Every structure is written in structure tokens, then in C-alpha cells.
């Protein structure tokens, strides 16, 4: 485990030490590779029992969710157990405006969905973020369930448990076909009979949705990075570590917590909208409390506060159950065992933020020194 972490941090360090041009070239190469994953179908990674494009779409979708929830939990230190609520509001806003009660094109629905979730984040956060500690977890847990129950019961608006179908797709622009690679052992062949149209959104091919989701991940990542490395990021960090002390430094802690909560909500709404347009059909069963738990697990397993960690965890936790589909129900047992093992052996997550690694290492050193002194 430590070897893995050291390897990943080693990769990070080496990357940071490279000259600027090499960084840009490498980053672009990595991005291109990630975009082409469902075309390349790399052996070992590709899922044989389920559509690899669809799995990758889910990975990217949940990565987006994890980035959003990481702002709330990892940066601002607010335990949000009802994140699926915002995801659901985003999805149903698109469903209601684009299909059930309107004909608004998707590209307009998405910003509206984000605005609606942002607003619901503020409405939920404004009264609850004033209290501290566990109350927020309880309130958000309730919020997630309330949203689902409203969706079930507000028949007229949401279609009740029947849900909403015919959700609009993004506009297509059919330019050319991209043939997939097939692998015979480790030898690749171009399969001209199996092509993905660039870029046509349809039920039959998930890959264009994956590209869309990935693009949104990159955009949100950039904004996330800009925010964290600003005064806002430092205010979040101070508030998370010691709210009173932060307040004494002149940080309006309530406002910053609300900002994190609402930003997270809006990203949750964006993810929900993306989910809706990919599925084209949604109903309240898609948004149970289990998903909130899964989302929190992604952030915690990845390492709260490290954007790369939570993306890695989101992708792993989505991909692994699909990859090991042949184990059928046993994989959920395995999934649970792996989570428990992680909680015991790596409570700080796969890739904790650099800072807590630093703090922990120094802590261990102090401990060793103190123990040493005690033995003398």
C-alpha cells in the first residue's frame, strides 16, 4: 500500500520537476490517451462483460461527482450525506424542462439545472451551516431522502415512480467515424466494422457521452484548481482546521462554507443533468441513499482534499465491479471487504493531500524521537 502511494507521489514529484514544455506535452499526451481509452480498448483494463464505453462514461460521471463532493468534504470539511439529492435535482430539472413539461434544448437545460441546484444548495445550507459538527450530516441525510420522496409523490411534475423518458440528447454533429481497436492477445487490429461516429449522441453508443463527460471533468478540474489555489481555498482550509481561529483571522467562515456547499451542489446538479441525458430515462429509483454513501466512499477512499485521489477512487470504485462482473454477487462482498481493509490500513485514503502526508510524516518522526528520549 505504501509502495503504491510512494509510487504515485513519486510520479507526481517527477512530473513537477520536469521543464514546462515537457509537462505540457505529457499532460496533453495523457489527456489524449484518456479520451481514446474506449477506442483503444486496452487489454486487462477493458471490461469484457459490459460495454467498456458505458463503464468509462460512468467512471467520468462519478469522477465529476467526486470532484464536486470533494469541495464540500475535502476542502471545507462539511460532511454531506445527501449529495444524491443535488444529483437528482439536476437530473429531474433536465427531465422536466426538456421532456415532461417543456421542450427546452439540452444545452440550455444544463445551466438551468446547475442554477437550480446551486439555489437549492443555498436554501439547504443557509440555515444548517450555522450549526456545527454532526448536525449537518443528519440534515443532509434527510435532505437526500426528502428529495427522493418528493420525486416519487409529485406525480404531476415528475411523473412519480414512472419517472420521465425521452430526455433530450446533446446536439449531434456527425463528422467522421472512428474505428475501434480489437486485441488478439496483445496484438491490436483495427476493426473497421465497429466505428464510433464523431460526434453522434445515441442510445447505441456511449462513447460520445464519455467524451462529453470527460470534457466536463477537465473544465471542472481547472475551475477547482483555480479556486483551491486562491484566497478562497485558504479560507476553506483554515475553516476546516479550526473554525474559531479562522473567524479570528477575519475569515467569514459561514459565507465560505455556504460557497463550498453551493459550488458542490451545482457540480452535483451538472452531474445529474449529464446522467439524465445519457440515460434518456430517469425515475426516483436511480437516486437512492445508497448513492450518497457511495459518493462519500469515493471521496474518503481517494483521500479527502486531493482532487486526483478522489478521481482515482471514483474511477476504481466504478470500474472494479464491472470488471469483475463474472464474480456476480460475490463482488459486492469483495467490495465491502476492500473498503474495510482500506479503512483499517489506510484511513487517510489512497492519495491523501500532500499536506496531511507531510504532517503525518513529521508526526511519526516526533513520536520516534520522543519514544527514543523516553527509553534513554
Amino acid at each position, binding site marked *: 500500500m505504501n509502495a503504491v502511494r510512494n509510487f504515485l507521489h513519486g510520479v507526481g514529484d517527477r512530473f513537477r520537476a520536469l521543464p514546462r514544455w515537457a509537462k505540457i506535452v505529457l499532460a496533453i499526451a495523457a489527456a489524449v490517451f484518456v479520451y481514446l481509452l474506449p477506442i483503444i480498448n486496452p487489454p486487462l483494463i477493458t471490461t469484457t462483460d459490459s460495454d467498456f464505453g458505458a463503464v468509462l462514461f460512468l467512471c467520468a460521471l462519478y469522477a465529476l461527482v467526486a470532484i464536486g463532493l470533494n469541495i464540500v468534504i475535502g476542502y471545507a470539511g462539511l460532511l454531506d450525506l445527501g449529495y444524491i439529492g443535488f444529483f437528482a435535482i439536476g437530473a429531474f430539472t433536465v427531465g422536466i424542462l426538456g421532456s415532461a413539461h417543456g421542450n427546452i434544448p439540452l444545452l440550455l437545460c444544463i445551466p438551468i439545472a446547475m442554477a437550480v441546484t446551486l439555489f437549492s444548495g443555498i436554501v439547504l445550507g443557509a440555515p444548517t451551516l450555522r450549526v456545527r459538527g454532526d448536525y449537518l450530516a443528519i440534515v443532509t441525510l434527510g435532505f437526500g431522502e426528502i428529495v427522493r420522496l418528493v420525486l416519487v409523490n409529485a406525480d404531476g411534475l415528475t411523473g412519480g415512480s414512472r419517472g420521465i423518458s425521452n430526455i433530450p440528447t446533446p446536439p449531434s454533429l456527425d463528422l467522421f467515424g472512428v474505428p475501434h481497436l480489437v486485441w488478439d492477445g496483445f496484438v491490436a487490429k483495427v476493426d473497421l466494422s465497429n466505428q464510433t461516429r464523431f460526434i453522434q449522441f445515441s442510445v447505441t453508443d456511449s462513447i460520445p457521452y464519455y467524451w462529453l463527460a470527460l470534457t466536463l471533468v477537465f473544465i471542472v478540474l481547472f475551475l477547482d484548481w483555480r479556486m483551491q489555489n486562491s484566497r478562497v481555498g*485558504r479560507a476553506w482550509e483554515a475553516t476546516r482546521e479550526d473554525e*474559531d*481561529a479562522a473567524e479570528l*483571522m477575519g475569515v467569514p467562515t459561514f459565507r465560505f462554507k455556504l460557497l463550498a456547499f453551493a459550488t458542490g451542489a451545482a457540480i452535483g446538479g451538472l452531474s445529474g443533468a449529464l446522467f439524465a441525458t445519457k440515460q434518456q430515462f430517469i425515475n426516483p429509483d436511480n437516486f437512492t441513499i445508497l448513492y450518497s454513501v457511495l459518493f462519500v466512499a469515493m471521496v474518503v477512499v481517494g483521500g479527502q482534499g486531493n482532487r486526483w485521489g478522489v478521481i482515482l477512487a471514483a474511477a476504481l470504485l466504478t470500474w472494479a465491479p464491472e470488471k469483475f462482473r463474472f464474480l456476480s454477487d460475490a463482488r459486492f462482498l469483495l467490495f465491502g471487504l476492500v473498503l474495510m481493509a482500506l479503512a483499517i490500513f489506510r484511513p487517510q485514503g489512497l492519495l491523501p493531500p500532500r499536506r496531511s502526508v507531510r504532517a503525518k510524516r513529521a508526526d511519526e518522526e516526533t513520536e520516534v524521537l520522543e519514544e527514543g528520549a523516553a527509553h534513554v
Partner: protein
Amino acid sequence: MLLEVDDLCVNYGRIEAIRNISFTINEGEIVTLIGANGAGKTTTMKTVSGLRPVRQGAIRFEGQDITAMPAHERPVLGIAQSPEGRGCFVGMTVQENLDMGAYARPDRKSPKIGQDRDRVFGLFPRLAERRTQVAGTMSGGEQQMLAMGRALMANPKLLLLDEPSMGLAPKLIQQIFDIITEINKQGTTVLLVEQNAAQALKRADRAYILETGEIIREGTGKDLASDPAVKAAYLGGDV
């Protein structure tokens, strides 16, 4: 008059932590509040810095009524607190902690910040050595210095120090009090809350004694230190 606290009452729920206390701090002074555990010292401090809401009474800073002003707006006026139990940001480095101290300053981008940081490093050379160290890995004494240095980075007119000697070795306590005197000489007014009454009275211009939420005595540090009743109750009679 820099700070004026007038007939202040503060509650925790239905418990009255502070009852009708009034005190003043003039510019350039060191004023100390002493008293036993639970006397209301820290509550008073938190109310002056805005962390506790006021039930009754008023707080005025440079003549301006700040009774209802939120805590995060007070550093801009020139009130900075080093909280009880230090409250360092344990995951941040020394330098990052100091920068947080200057967070609210309107002139945070000017070279004045660098000068103020040098001033803090001058007062606490230990912090300069540990500049890039993560605060959580430092000793209690070093964290206390950091909390004081961080409060100074706000360039305050009034510095609130809550139990700066708590949990420190006697030699270090002496050093911390020397530094408090030095900070005051450099022109910062200090409100000091202490259980170490002997040191606090020795350093303070004036002192107030709190007992179960009320001020029972006030006077110059010297007078109170030589008062037999105070000696018996707070100084162990042998100072």
C-alpha cells in the same frame, strides 16, 4: 480609551457566564484579567473578539459600538486574538499560519506584510528557523509563539492573549512574558488573560480580578500584587 466594556452579560444557554462586568483599556497599556478556572476569563475574551454573542451590555472600540459586529470583521478594526489552546492551523506550515494572520488586512499585498513578518521572526527567532515546518508537529511552546505571531500579523491595535503560558515549562513562561512586554513596548496594547497571576500582575499596568463571572477587584498590577487578600487567594502568599 481604546476598549470600553460596559455592563456586559454573557450566557451559555441559561447559565450566566459573565454578569455585569465593566472594564476599560487605554492605549499602550497591558491590562490583565486574572481569576480561577471557570471565573469567566476566556468567555470575556471571546466576547471581546466576537466569538460569543452578548446578552446585555456594550463593547466599544475606539468609541465605535462593536457589540453586534461579527468576529471576522473585528480584525480589520485592529483587534486580534491568540486563542486559548493556541488554535494554530495544524496542517499549515509556520509561514502559511502567519499569512493567515494577515488574511483580512486591506494592505495584504504591500511590502508592509514582509516587514511585519520580519518583526514576528525578530520576536520569535524560533519561528524563523521553523518557517516551513507544519505547525501540528511543533512543541506546545512553539505553537504558542506561532499563535501570538499569527495574531501580530494582523497588525492589531489591541492584542488579546488568552492564557499564553498554559501548559508551558517555567523557563518558557518567563520568555513568553518577556516577549509580551516587548510587544507592548513596540506600541501594541495588550489584554492578557492569565491563570499565572504572579507573572501577569508583574507585567500589567492594570488588572481586574474575576470571580464567578463578576469583577471583584481592580487596580494597578503592583497594588494588587501586594494586596494580602489577593496574595492569599491567587499568589499562594509567597510572592
